[in-house]
């Protein structure tokens, strides 16, 4: 563990990761609660595809610790961890996931399409296609003479898409304040990185665009925090974009209902869970004890259950409003 990091920051990183995990576990519970005995993806209080981010908490916590609400974050089809870490309104986000009128998108978006303009948070459900608009947000920030930055998130599978490379070139060329984050969870649904990617890691690809590239190993939240801190500072100071790839962990399936029969490493996965690992390290360092852990977990649970209750209490959209919001 790095000694450069403040104990209060370590505690915040831990709390953030626990909040995210508590949230994903609650969504998992609610998602499956009324899909029994036979799993039907379109049934229940939360219908549709559900991509949960358990195991990837270190990336969101480490990156977003450096951001304020004026900075922009564009996440992927697996967006909850970044939304939470960037301070998206949890009640309205949860209502959106439940498809309710008080949701961020009034029930029009769903879990892959979360937009909170107050936090400048967006998603794209299309692999790598969240990158180009992020460059445009950064361009707007630069044109207006601010020191705001934009964070673009993808998975490692997205690094083989054209949109990824076009955006890296554009952001490098125009020296835009962007932090490109690649979450390498080893799997593009069922295809391992070894079968999809021609280089050992995607941070190497930064060299092709003349920008710094950093690879963070072992899903290490403090290393993410340190790399992101340098990247955000560079972007705020006019130094242009940075590419950060984090070797993270997809603790669960690609989406709920994915039996992961293709995954030979499945047995070892729970042992790589980053939260118990980090908790043990902080206990050893004297930063956490039983009481502190209990407080964190209780606070996370209260926040999450309150958001779930808010969502369930919100009405479903009126069918007569189906044509609303196509145009401003």
């Amino acid at each position, binding site marked *: 563990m790095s000694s450069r990091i403040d104990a209060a920051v370590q505690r915040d990183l831990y709390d953030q990761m626990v909040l995210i995990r508590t949230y994903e576990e609650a969504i998992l519970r609610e998602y499956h609660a009324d899909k029994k005995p036979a799993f039907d993806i379109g049934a229940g209080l939360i219908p549709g595809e559900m991509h949960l981010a358990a195991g990837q908490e270190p990336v969101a916590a480490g990156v977003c610790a450096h951001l304020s609400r004026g900075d922009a974050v564009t996440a992927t089809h697996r967006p909850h961890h970044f939304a939470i870490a960037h301070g998206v309104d949890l009640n309205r986000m949860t209502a959106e996931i439940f498809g309710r009128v008080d949701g*961020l998108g*009034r029930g029009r*978006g769903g879990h892959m399409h979360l937009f909170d303009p107050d936090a400048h948070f967006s998603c794209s459900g299309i692999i790598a296609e969240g990158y180009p608009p992020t460059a445009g947000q*950064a361009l707007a920030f630069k044109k207006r003479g601010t020191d705001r930055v934009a964070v673009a998130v993808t998975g490692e599978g997205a690094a083989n898409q*054209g*949109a990824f490379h076009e955006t890296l070139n554009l952001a490098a060329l125009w020296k835009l304040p962007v932090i490109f984050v690649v979450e390498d969870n080893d799997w593009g649904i069922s295809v391992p990185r070894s079968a999809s990617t021609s280089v050992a890691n995607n941070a190497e690809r930064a060299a092709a665009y003349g920008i710094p590239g950093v690879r963070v190993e072992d899903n290490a939240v403090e290393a993410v925090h340190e790399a992101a801190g340098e990247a955000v500072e560079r972007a705020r100071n006019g130094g242009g974009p940075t590419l950060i790839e984090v070797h993270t962990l997809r603790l669960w399936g690609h989406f709920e209902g994915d039996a992961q029969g293709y995954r030979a490493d499945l047995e070892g996965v729970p042992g790589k869970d980053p939260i118990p690992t980090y908790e043990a390290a902080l206990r050893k360092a004297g930063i956490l004890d039983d009481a502190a852990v209990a407080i964190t977990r209780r606070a996370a649970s209260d926040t999450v259950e309150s958001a779930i209750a808010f969502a369930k209490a919100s009405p479903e959209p009126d069918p007569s409003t189906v044509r609303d*919001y196509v145009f*401003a």
Partner: protein
Amino acid sequence: MSIDTTQQPATQGDPAEQPAAAPATKRLNTAKAMVEAIAREMERDEDVFVLGEDVGAYGGIFSSTTGLLDRFGPERVMDTPISETGFIGAAIGAATEGMRPIVELMFVDFFGVCMDQIYNHMAKIHFESGGNVKVPMVLMTAVGGGYSDGAQHSQCLWGTFAHLPGMKVVVPSNPADAAGLMTAAIRDDNPVVFMFHKGIQGLPWMAKNKRSIGPVPTGDHVVEIGKAATARPGSDVTVVTLSLSVHHALDVAEELAADGTADVEVIDLRSIVPLDTEAIIESVTRTGHLVIVDEDYQSFGLSGEIAARIAEHDPTILKAPISRVAVPDVPIPYARPLEYTALPTPARIKEAIIGQVAPA
């Protein structure tokens, strides 16, 4: 600010001789009219900027941005890499942060390399956000054939864009409408696809339509998006069309009026999203005859949509089956005799109109 070159100086003469109520105009070609409208809005609103391939020193391959770089500098008139997904996406992101980008897709035919940004992002973000995020931007793009540029550089494709919800689609046919629709598009809080036909730009290196130069109001000039215009009133047959085909239809209408064959009404749609259904129905109710002229592919497109709207309204307003003059579901061919067989030429339009008025 543009200089008014036509306004009369105050004189001591007879007031009746002065066209006091007529708006001041100057004669511009369509390309220049677009540029003037963009420049005016850039002066009015510092959030407006232009980006695209060759929009800077070159001035736009079809002269849609000529002179803007000199007037506004490289910060606001940005040449981009050949990277349509990247820079159209960048325009979208800038728009979501409140700027008003005008982004050029050089040929509409190139939409294949960037359509995800256009239809999944530009057109859907407002809806997915429940109206909380606006995307105020203009995607301007050159359309149309007639100069042997082949199957990948000659299409219109407006039906493809209009089919997908969330973007307005405007298609001017003349300089005044190009200026007025451009101004409206820039000020609109929605994404607007602005499709200009190369054949009406008034380019010195391409055969010019005689109406590609015309009077453009010099003052604040807005053409409301979603309103068709009656390019020529008539009583026998309605021709509903848009873009360059408006001029072919007008030429044919004048010829048929001169020889007494038919009094043709020409409706210039100007916008197809929203489509001015009311104007179409009003005209066809009077004439009972409809010819739809569309330089886009015939099947599953604009011409079918217009026919469907009439059928949904009241098919009995038609005294005869409708006629469609469109590209007959083939890619645009290269060789001139083939291309001009596929395109909606004046000869094909004339034949369709005569077919409507001829006794059964």
